[in-house]
C-alpha cells in the first residue's frame, strides 16, 4: 500500500476537539481548559466536557510565510490568537488575504475547514479555523 504520512488514530481521537471545540471544565473551580486537561490547576481530576462558544474576538495576528512542508501550497498562513468566551486559542485565520483591517477586538467566528491532506491518496484532516464575522475589510 502507498505510504501514509498522516496518522489516522492520532487525528480521529481528537475530532471532538477539532470539530466541536470540546474543552474541559473543572467540576470544582469551574476553570475551562482548551486543549482539554486531565487534572485542573486546583488539583481536582474530575473535569467535564464543555463546548467552547463559536464566536469571539481577535487578540493578535501574524502572517507566516515560512511554513512547514505540508502547508507549502497554502502559504502564507495567517496565524492568530482568538478569544472564545475567555479561552484563548491559536490557529489559522481565513477568508482574509489582506488582513490590514483586522485588529485586536475584531469579532471572529469559528469555521469548519480542511486543514491538510496526505497527498492525493491519503486522509483529509478537518478542523477549526477562524474568520472575521463581518468580512475582511471591516
Amino acid at each position, binding site marked *: 500500500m502507498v505510504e501514509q504520512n498522516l496518522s489516522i488514530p492520532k487525528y480521529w481521537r481528537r475530532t471532538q*476537539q477539532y470539530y466541536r471545540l470540546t474543552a474541559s471544565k473543572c467540576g470544582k473551580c469551574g476553570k475551562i481548559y482548551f486543549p482539554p486537561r486531565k487534572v485542573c490547576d486546583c488539583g481536582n481530576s474530575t473535569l467535564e466536557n464543555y463546548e467552547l462558544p463559536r464566536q469571539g474576538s481577535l487578540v493578535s495576528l501574524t502572517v507566516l510565510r515560512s511554513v512547514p512542508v505540508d502547508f507549502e501550497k497554502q502559504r502564507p498562513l495567517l496565524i492568530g490568537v482568538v478569544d472564545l468566551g475567555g479561552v484563548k486559542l*491559536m490557529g489559522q485565520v481565513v477568508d482574509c488575504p489582506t488582513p490590514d483591517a483586522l485588529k485586536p477586538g475584531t469579532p471572529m467566528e469559528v469555521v469548519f475547514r480542511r486543514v*491538510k491532506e496526505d497527498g492525493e491518496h491519503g486522509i483529509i484532516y478537518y478542523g477549526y479555523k477562524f474568520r472575521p464575522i463581518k468580512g475582511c475589510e471591516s
Partner: protein
Amino acid sequence: MVLITTGVYINGYASVPPSRHYEKGVTELFAESTLKALEAAGNPRIRMIYMASALMELTSEQLNAGNVLREYIGLKDVPTMRVENGDGSSSLAMLAAVNDVKLKGGCVMVVGIEKPHEVTSTKLNKFISFSTNSEYEAFFGVTPAAQAAIMAREYMNKYEYSYEDIAVWPLKMHERGAQNPNAYFKKAVKMKDILESELVADPLRLYDVAPYVDGSAAIIVCSEPNKRDAIIQVSGAGMGVGSAYFASKQTYAALESVKPAVDQALAESSMKLEDIRVINVHDTYSIIGLMTLEAMGFSPQGMAPRLMRDGAFDPGSKVVVNMDGGLKAMGFPIGASGLYQLISSIAQLRGEKPFESLNADAALVHDMVGIDQESIVTALRRGD
C-alpha cells in the same frame, strides 16, 4: 562573593564550527567534538555520555544513536543517556550530567549534536513545528516563528516600539559576530539590510531569526579539576516553565519561564544577580533575546531595546550579553545550541580569544524550549 566548591568542574571542551556540514554526518560531527574535548581534558575515563539532540531521530533516522556514535570513537562500556528537550536539550543534558558527577564522581561527557541540513527547509520547518503543541498548534501549521512574531507584535504595541527599535538586536549581535572568528555569520550588518530583509512572520524578518546550522559540541565534566588556574565550575542550575499551549500564556509581551530558572540557578550557586558579569541568552528570535534580558532582571520591563541601543550590554559594560554574537551570529544548532553557549561562556570566563577583554568570574547561560515553554539556566563560576 563566597567561593563555594561545588564539585563539578569543566575539564575540557570543543565544538565543531557551526555551518552547513553536508560532508559530515552525525558520526563525523560527534567524533570531531568529542575527541578534541577528551584530549583537552587529558583523556580521562568517561563513565557516561549525555547526548543532547532535538532532531536526531527525525533528520538522521537513528534510534539509540549513542551506541553507534560511541563505537565510532572506540569507546567501550560507556552508556549514553539520550536527552531530548527540544532546543533546550543541551542544558537539560548538562543538568543530568552535573547531578551524575555530584553523586558518583569521576568524569562524564556531555555532547550536543544536530544535523538540521540533512533535510530540506520546509521539511525542517515541519520538524521544528513539532516543538509546538503537536495536536493543537503544529496540526494547524503553527511554528515557533509565528509564536515569536506574535510576542514581538504584542511587545511592540505594549511598549510603543517600532520594528526598527527591536531590530537593534540583530544589529548588535552581528557587530559581535564580526569580531568572533568562530561565528557562523561573520559580517556586521547595516540597519537598512535588516529593515529590508524578507518577512518570515510579520513583524519578524530574516535577520530576526537565528539561522539553522549543523553542529556538535562536547564538554567533559568531572568531580576533580584537571587544572590549577581558571578553573570553571558549574555552580548551579535552575528550571522554569511557561505554557505548553502558546495562547494560554498569561501575557504575550513577556517571558514567564525565565525568572524561576534564574532564581534557582543563583540560589544553588549562592550568588546574586549583581555577581553576574556575562550572560548568554537563547536568542532564537531577536524578540526572545530582548525579552530574556528583562525576564532575567537585567533590564526593567520594556526597556531592553533602549538599553541595547545605548550599549548597556556591549563588551566593556558591567554585564555583557551574547559576546559571541548569540545564536544570531553563531547559528542555531537547535538541541546542541545550549552546549555551544556553555562553551562560549566558559571561554568568556577564561578570557580566551576573542574574549580577552572580558574580566568576569560568573556567567549565566540561558537555554529555552520552544517559545517560552521552558527555560533552563546554568550558572558557571571561575575560581583559581
